């Protein structure tokens, strides 16, 4: 009976056919060996790549034998093909070279291709894979194996300032879509052989390269192994962005809060790695992930550490405050207007009531109207073509501002509330964290409309309870506040001077808990000290 219901409602459970191409991941035992029969290999490749216009197969002569060179036009550097293959093969000494077996093929490569990265491959699926990752492959008649020469084009967007998390003081370079460039951006900051990048291929159809980076004598091995385990167990067909990975490896899906940190800033990632965290780089995405994360990380930005520590601590306080403002201001307004008039000083109350006199809606409708209008404007602002930006901003400013008030649809104080909320929301350094407060704000508004401040408080306590139930790779989300860790308080609400931060966060339980044991305050010794 149950099976029968399953068949009707969950047919996918039965038809479990993978779309993975057999050419890439053959079943075990059915791998085809490159056996030197170049005609059949040519035919197989033609079948595999079908009508792709960028697939090229050129016949050539190598070591006195016939051969084929395969490559994808789009992935390889045409200049490289020209120089390395054509020139090498037309070289007189190369023409005299004779290849009769695999050993001699290797010798040929040593002699003539040593300037470029090459490798000998022996299976057909490897050949396909090499072509797809930008190599040219040469097969020789009657010789087992093939030569694959790396001719990847290194085309990428130039390194520019990140569009999120901009800083006033601090490095201005940002990650780009090419994973190799991103690796180099991190490596340049940490010149340490212990910084390691483990590579994985994720996505059955896309075969996206994913790097897991960590510093192996600092990172907590349990956390690192857990990250690798979760990454390996991803069964996705396509990975385009680190956001895809994030959803697969998060500890909990039903939460508006992000359980991995994402940033475009190489200095942030370098800092996180040195704290003992694990970074995840995804080819094709300028956003690099870092795990495990605690809520405190979302209120920090690398600039905090470049500015004087008092300033750094102050802006951090401003960020915490703004999060709270963005979360509860509209709800608080609704609660006070609807239930708790006595909380407002009389003068102000009279003013607000006078404004609201012409407004036909209850506070709840008014606030929802404005909030939703604002969310629409905001979405339009992100998505619209740059050319029409002017129009939207003018219309938006007029609609949401004066006109709505003059038309008597909303009160002027409501406009202030929505504006303050919106601006406070933009303070959050990490965009994905700000969207959590965007969502929860509406729940708070509804609670406050029903129960006043009591509802808002219930909502806040429920949110805190939810936050304290979250974990990111086993690390409690609210660490080091709850559970309270005294040693880690030097980087939570107040950022201590850099020389005062001697230890790595204890909640990460790193292999090297002390990072700079000898750091001292720069105070000079008192005069006349003698020594």
């Amino acid at each position: 009976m149950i099976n029968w219901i399953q068949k009707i409602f969950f047919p996918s459970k039965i038809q479990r056919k993978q779309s993975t191409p057999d050419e890439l991941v053959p079943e075990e035992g059915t791998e085809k060996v490159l056996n030197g029969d170049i005609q059949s290999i040519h035919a197989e490749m033609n079948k595999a790549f079908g009508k792709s216009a960028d697939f090229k197969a050129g016949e050539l002569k190598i070591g006195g034998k016939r051969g084929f060179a395969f490559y994808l036009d789009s992935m390889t550097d045409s200049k490289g093909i020209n120089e390395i293959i054509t020139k090498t093969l037309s070289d007189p000494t190369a023409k005299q070279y004779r290849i009769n077996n695999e050993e001699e093929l290797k010798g040929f490569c040593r002699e003539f291709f040593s300037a470029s990265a090459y490798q000998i491959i022996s299976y057909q699926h490897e050949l396909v894979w090499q072509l797809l990752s930008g190599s040219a492959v040469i097969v020789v008649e009657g010789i087992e194996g093939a030569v694959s020469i790396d001719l990847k084009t290194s085309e990428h967007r130039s390194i520019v300032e990140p569009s999120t998390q901009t800083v006033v003081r601090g490095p201005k370079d940002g990650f780009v879509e090419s994973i190799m460039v991103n690796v180099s951006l991190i490596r340049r900051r940490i010149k340490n052989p212990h910084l390691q990048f483990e590579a994985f291929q994720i996505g059955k159809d896309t075969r996206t390269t994913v790097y897991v980076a960590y510093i192996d004598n600092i990172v907590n091995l349990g956390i690192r192994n857990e990250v690798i385990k979760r990454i390996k167990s991803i069964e996705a067909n396509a990975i385009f962005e680190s956001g895809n990975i994030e959803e697969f490896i998060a500890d909990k899906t039903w939460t508006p809060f992000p359980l991995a940190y994402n940033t475009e800033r190489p200095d942030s990632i370098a800092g996180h790695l040195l704290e003992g965290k694990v970074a995840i780089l995804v080819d094709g995405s300028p956003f690099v992930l870092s795990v495990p994360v605690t809520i405190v990380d979302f209120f920090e930005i690398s600039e905090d550490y470049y500015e004087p520590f008092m300033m750094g601590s102050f802006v951090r306080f401003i960020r915490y405050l703004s999060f709270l403002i963005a979360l509860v201001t509209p709800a608080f307004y609704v609660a006070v207007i609807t239930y708790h008039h006595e909380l407002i000083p009389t003068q102000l109350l009279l003013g607000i009531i006078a404004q609201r006199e012409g407004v036909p809606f209850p506070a709840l409708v008014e606030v929802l109207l404005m909030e939703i209008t604002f969310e629409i404007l905001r979405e339009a602002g992100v998505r619209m073509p740059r050319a029409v930006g002017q129009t939207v901003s003018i219309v938006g400013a007029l609609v949401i501002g004066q006109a709505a008030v003059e038309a008597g649809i909303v009160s002027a104080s409501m406009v202030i509330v929505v504006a303050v909320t919106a601006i406070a929301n933009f303070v959050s350094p990490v965009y994905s964290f700000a969207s959590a407060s965007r969502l929860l704000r509406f729940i708070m508004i509804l609670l406050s409309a029903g129960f006043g401040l009591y509802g808002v408080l219930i909502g806040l306590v429920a949110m805190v309870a939810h936050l304290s139930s979250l974990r990111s790779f086993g690390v409690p989300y609210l660490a080091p506040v709850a559970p309270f860790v005294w040693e880690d308080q030097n980087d939570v609400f107040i950022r201590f001077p850099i020389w005062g931060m001697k230890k790595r966060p204890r909640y990460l339980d790193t292999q090297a808990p002390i990072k700079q044991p000898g750091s001292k305050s720069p105070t000079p010794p008192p005069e006349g000290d003698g020594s």
Partner: protein
Amino acid sequence: MKLQENVSVIQLLALVINFQIGSSIVVGLAGQAKQDAWIAVLIATVVGVGVAYFYYKLLSFCPGKNLYEILEFSFGRIIAVGVSLLFIGFFFYIAARVSRDFAEMMTSAILPNTPIEAINLLLMLLVAYILYLGLEPLARTAEIFSPYIVIFFGLLTLLLWVSGDISIRQVQPVLAYGWAPIAKTVFPDLMSFPFGELVVFTAIMCYTTKFRYAGKVAMVGVGIAGLLVGFSTAMQIMVLGVDSVARSNFPLLSAAREVSVAQFIERIDAFVVFIMMLGIVIKCSVYMFAAFKGIEYVFKMPYRPFVFPITMVISLFTVMIAFNFAEHIDEGLNYTIPYFNATMEYAVPLILFVVTYIKVRKQRKKKGAEKA
């Protein structure tokens, strides 16, 4: 998934403080002692510290076992299930009472037009959600909000002082009626409520990560909470005077209404509710958690599936235990405290203590004999 949830030492401290403050600052304490109520509370605190030590000692006979498992250890499963059911009923009943205290205050002072059922339901939904998440989130929530409770207390005192409402004369003359009324309030009223209520921690304390500190921490927690409650009692009397406190249903709330600074900060009672609500939520959740642990023991299955249905039933029960607030308080003072509380908080644990003590000693002797 982790099988065992643990509570850190700091979290236990936060839980105990919040729990003890809980409903005792909502409804005033020790009204019979007149202006010496604060002395009564402080004396009861000293007793309460002793009580905390007693419960700790009871648990330390069998480390890692909670109340119900110790019951089984001492009396065998059949009797243990019976007594556990009694405890479960007691905990649920007190949880309902606690939530009723708060809901009554909300309806009479903050949200007069909202029916008590709605207020209660929302509170219980929150409690159910926290319990569904588990003990750890409960403890962490308590940990996070504790500093705010102390800050709000300090702020309230400061504001009352600034607006000139505190007058030390209201508590004079000290000991005008002698020690007799104080002794009468300490025993049995204050002994059972709030200090004897620590009995629920016999179902929780055993999950502390460093159990050997648990006793000390619980004692410190009771001490701090007692000082805070004593302080708030004294403040209520100093602000309102003995007669108003006696007449007021929710003295701390009435006291907070007196605040008026620079004609700007006025009527902050909605904020005072904040302190109270946290205490109530924690207290209610702790009671419910202890009861659910009992259910887990009796029915031998995880408590999570029970959380929402039972909590909703309790929410209904809360409304039905009394027709109005006067009856609710009357029941509390004249029936619950002398009969129910005294039995479950002192009589049963005392018997359990003696039996467990004898049994543990016997076992040790046996082991010693085997070794020798």
